[in-house]
């Protein structure tokens, strides 16, 4: 990427929280706007969804027929596509419906479900188009996004980080909530990025950054049972923000057959 790369920020089904990784940057947002040209970012007022860009950020999951078509168009006009957050990487919290009967759910919330365009599944972007980089986290942090953009501006890929939350937890000098209090902390199977926030607040990690590389979720599931959780309680730990990721599905399946 030479010169000022053109960037786009797209939204699909989501809570908008990951876009705030940009909008909450303060003065750094203005500094960023000197480094890149924001071509499309509807929430910030720039609208040109079909413009050819160097770098596209995608927030949100694919959950309607319209989304499916849109993401394919976006892929065509984006050189490098980065997914932002849980929704875009694993379907997000709304993927909880993948395990339920989606029609049933529609009926419960809406009186005239037939007018609602909604697929049975909420899925991550990579299930539909090629993704060049995934930034996990619910939400991704501004620091994470800026670090990735900076490396891309240098013309290199961002450094891979395949550590678990525990690594940051120990580096920041926290005392383990699982070992001292028996809290059902998912830190040992969750990817880093947040800086081990929950343990800093004395509480168990609930896995919002998604399963880490080589997450041994079945062993974690056994440990949760050992801490006294019921199989159903343990299953819910894995079925939360990233229920649709394979590692969590694996653990949930084991626990369901346990229950």
């Amino acid at each position, binding site marked *: 990427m030479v010169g000022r790369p053109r960037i786009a920020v797209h939204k699909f089904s989501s809570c908008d929280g990951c876009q705030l990784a940009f909008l909450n940057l303060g003065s*750094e947002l203005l*500094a*960023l706007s000197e*480094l890149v040209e924001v071509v499309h970012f509807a929430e910030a007022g720039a609208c040109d969804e079909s413009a050819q860009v160097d770098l596209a950020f995608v927030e949100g999951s694919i959950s309607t027929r319209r989304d499916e078509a849109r993401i394919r168009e976006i892929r065509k006009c984006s050189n490098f596509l980065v997914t932002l957050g849980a929704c875009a990487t694993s379907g997000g919290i709304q993927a909880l419906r993948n395990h339920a009967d989606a029609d049933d759910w529609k009926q419960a919330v809406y009186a005239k479900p037939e007018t609602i365009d909604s697929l049975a599944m909420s899925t991550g972007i990579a299930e539909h188009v090629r993704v060049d980089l995934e930034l996990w986290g619910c939400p991704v942090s501004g620091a994470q996004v*800026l*670090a990735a953009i*900076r490396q891309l*501006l*240098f013309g290199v890929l961002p*450094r*891979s*980080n*395949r*550590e*678990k939350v*525990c*690594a940051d937890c*120990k*580096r*920041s*000098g*926290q*005392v*383990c*909530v*699982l*070992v*001292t*209090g*028996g809290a059902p*902390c998912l*830190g*040992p*199977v969750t990817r880093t990025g947040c800086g081990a926030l929950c343990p800093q607040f*004395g509480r168990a990690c609930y896995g919002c950054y998604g399963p880490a*590389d*080589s997450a*041994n979720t079945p*062993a*974690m599931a*056994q*440990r949760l049972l050992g801490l006294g959780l019921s199989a159903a309680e343990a299953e819910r730990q894995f079925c939360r923000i990233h229920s649709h990721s394979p590692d969590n599905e694996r653990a949930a399946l084991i626990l369901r057959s346990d229950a």
Partner: protein
Amino acid sequence: MENVADCFLARPDLQQLFDALLARDYDVWGPVARDGSIVFESVESVDMLPVGLIDQQDPGAYRLQETGNERVFDWTNGPQALKPMVFRPEVTLWEVARDAAGGLRFREPARPAQKRAVVGVRACDLAALYIHDRHFLQGESPEPDYRAQRQRLFLVAVNCTRAGNQCFCASTGDGPQARYGYDLALTELEQGFLVHAHSDAGRELLSALPTRAATAAEVSDAEKSVRVAAEQQRALPSRDLRDALLERLDHPRWKETAERCLGCGNCTAVCPTCFCNQEMDQPSLDGGHSEHVRQWDSCFSPDHGYIHGLRLREDTAGQYRQWLTHKLATWHDQYGRSGCVGCGRCITWCPVGIDLVEEVQALLREDAHG
């Protein structure tokens, strides 16, 4: 056993130790109870010490319990040794600025110089510190940040008079009594502390404390309680497990343990001798400036054994085997001893309670020998 101590400091006078250190411009650190454990923090007053607290340690579990007595050093250890103070979890090694013409100006950051005293250091912590000194300082290229942190330290050791449930330092030859590497050592008795100085700075400080000569009974009391602590411990089968483990690289146990192991690296983070670290750049947004940072790493991290296109240890079994064989076997090749000082931290702080002693026993058990 060498004399445990020569002087006696009455319990009410313990504050004077802190005062004397503060008066000598030390930043004084000591044990405090925080978040259900004992950690080292800045401590100015004895009121902040963990009075009447002991630690109940089991594989994967740590609980503080109240004893109702006045003793302040009856706990054995918490998750940290001296490691975070000398081999810091994250530190900027150097910085670089790029000028408009593309020129690079490298700079090393200023390192802290204020003296720091740590009260409550255990024999195993000292043994581990000695190993880290060998690793970070005594090679061909000493590590500047480690050196700066290390040179600040004044160490007040405590001889253990109670064995933790996971302690096995007697079997590794590293405790429970502090033998080297400290300035002052305390042994806690009913009424006070035996104090022993082991360096010039220690002797100078001791001379400022309101001590009297210890009685023979006090000395023998102290010796006895340290001995009892040693006798109560668990034990590793041998101090030198090098060949025994390297002969068992294909043992089925590695895979069995890997099924339980979460690969989270907590064992390496709490181990006082683990030294692996990774380096990375943290550039400013405009790209003009960058900090080159060093962070604790772990051989359990998938990127640890990565060379382009290949993960040398592709599964947890390989990672666990690397950890254990480095710690207990190939460490001997590097530093003439095992890398384990018997503190038991990796056992307690493992979220699933994988027990190093038990693992070694299982690997050595002939019937299971593949």
